[in-house]
């Protein structure tokens, strides 16, 4: 577990916050650019020193300004993947990977190279790698230094959609297979939805809230910060069938009766695999339980948990409970009035299949 409590002034910007990162899984540090997330990462990595504060990794004190303790970066045992890959141009890919590798990690080399799919690049020089390849090598290099935690500072920036998707899959696999906890900095809710187990929200140099990713996505009060239009919920589901002829995959949500499946474009996973779905609030509607089914529209039994308290504007966000998972929906204020919605009401959550793109579903 990493615990940081730091204070630092940078010009007229002040970073004054605390952050806790658990010793397993992927924790996302989410914030707009200029919110202080990169500065915080630099302090944790030891590339800067806070004016005041403490940073503790497990039972090792990395920083304690009161006791004048500051461990230099090369003794922190933290792997860092920077926004730019920062590969050494004068070493081959193999040389880069081995740069921080202790003797004991030699046995990891082949496995990691295979996991990251960089075996064919080993004798190349970094100048001849594509953006995605360079990031993967940088991740491998950081991991081979046997870090106790991996810090990633927006490692997907500047990659195109397909490369980003591919790298996301590699990072997910890493988190699962290597067991190294990851602190992942991002300003992209989609990346976070795909990767994170926990989210810490940082704004103006202060971590405002943190918690499990589905909870954080669902919290209405964070709407204005995560961007209301992109507001979405994360749901866990399971692949129950593929329909090869129609190129569809059927997903079932836990706690939802058999038969009420969600159809999405054919996925790569096998039947029984767990998936994580990101559903945008603006794509979710509600209907009364008596409404007949419509083709192409999934109807999930839901309970209305909470109606957003926006006093003005055309839209209202409501929070639904679907088999125990939180699902937010965005409605017009007009509809809320006409339907006479109230908390505790049984409803149908309605979702058109075509609104769920491949990018919104991650097989885990």
């Amino acid at each position: 577990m990493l615990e940081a409590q730091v204070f630092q002034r940078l010009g007229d910007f002040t970073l004054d916050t605390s952050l806790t990162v658990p010793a397993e899984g992927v924790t996302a540090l989410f914030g707009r650019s200029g919110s202080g997330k990169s500065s915080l990462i630099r302090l944790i990595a030891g590339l800067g020193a806070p004016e005041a504060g403490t940073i503790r990794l497990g039972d090792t004190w990395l920083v304690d300004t009161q006791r004048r303790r500051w461990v230099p970066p090369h003794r922190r045992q933290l792997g860092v993947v920077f926004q730019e890959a920062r590969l050494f141009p004068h070493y081959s890919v193999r040389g880069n990977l081995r740069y921080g590798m202790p003797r004991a990690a030699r046995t990891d080399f082949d496995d990691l190279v295979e996991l990251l799919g960089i075996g064919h690049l080993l004798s190349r020089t970094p100048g001849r790698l594509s953006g995605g390849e360079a990031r993967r090598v940088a991740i491998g290099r950081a991991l081979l230094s046997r870090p106790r935690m991996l810090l990633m500072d927006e490692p997907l920036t500047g990659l195109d959609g397909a490369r980003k998707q591919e790298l996301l899959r590699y990072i997910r696999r890493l988190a699962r297979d290597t067991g190294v906890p990851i602190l992942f900095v991002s300003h992209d809710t989609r990346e976070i939805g795909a990767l994170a187990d926990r989210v810490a929200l940082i704004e103006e140099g202060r971590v405002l809230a943190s918690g499990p990713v589905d909870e954080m996505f669902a919290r209405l009060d964070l709407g204005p910060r995560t961007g209301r239009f992109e507001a979405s919920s994360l749901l866990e589901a399971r692949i129950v069938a593929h329909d090869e002829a129609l190129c569809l995959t059927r997903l079932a949500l836990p706690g939802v009766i058999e038969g009420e499946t969600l159809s999405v474009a054919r996925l790569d996973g096998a039947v029984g695999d767990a998936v994580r779905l990101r559903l945008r609030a603006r794509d979710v509607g509600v209907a009364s339980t008596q409404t007949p089914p419509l083709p192409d529209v999934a109807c999930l039994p839901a309970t209305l948990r909470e109606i957003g308290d926006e006093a003005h504007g055309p839209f209202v966000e409501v929070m639904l409970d679907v088999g125990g998972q939180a699902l937010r929906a965005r409605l017009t204020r007009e509809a809320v009035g006409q339907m006479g919605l109230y908390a505790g009401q049984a409803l149908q959550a309605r979702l058109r299949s075509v609104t769920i793109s491949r990018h919104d579903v991650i097989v885990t």
Partner: protein
Amino acid sequence: MLTPLEWEALTLSLRVSGVAVAAILLPGLGMAYVLARFDFPGKALVDGIVHLPLVLPPVVVGYLLLVSLGRQGSLGQWLHETLGVSLPFTWQGAALAGAVMAFPLLVRAVRLSLESVDRKLEEAARTLGASRWKTFLTVTLPLILPGILTGGVLAFARSLSEFGATITFAANIPGETRTLPLALYSLVQTPGKEAAAARLCVISVVVALIALVASEWLARRARRRLEGRHA
């Protein structure tokens, strides 16, 4: 092909310049590092003193060396009494004169390449477990190698062509301090030696050209390695 006198002047020149460059390589690297990476009070003054030989008449530099390192100079007296070393009028003195004159050129070249090194790469090395010193040796030094080569050759050439400071501090002693430029100067002063002077001229040009071409080749090779066209 070469007369014994020409051969003597040429080998002496190469030895004097070689020793001069070898002697300033490490101090030059250190000075360049300090000037490129640190801010401290009096930095402008240090920078100015390092670059002084570039703008001072070389004779002034030679004279200052003579005053401080001659038998009567305080430093020279100390050197003579404690170490038994006397620099004026020796080839080592000529090398010192060349070193002082070449120092700013070396520092300049290394400093420029140090300033162009991406500090982010050094940060990455630190997070990978490399100490400051290991980072310097494995990342910074290889990256500034082209600059060191260029600066070294530039310093060598400057030392080779050194005249004013050498003749003032080390005089013009055949076989001891009579380097190529000094030998040429002596021949020009002697009536009827025009042909011999012309030969020395050609030798000087050839040596300088070889140095320049070699430095260009080495620097290009080093750069190519950095850009990764070769594995």
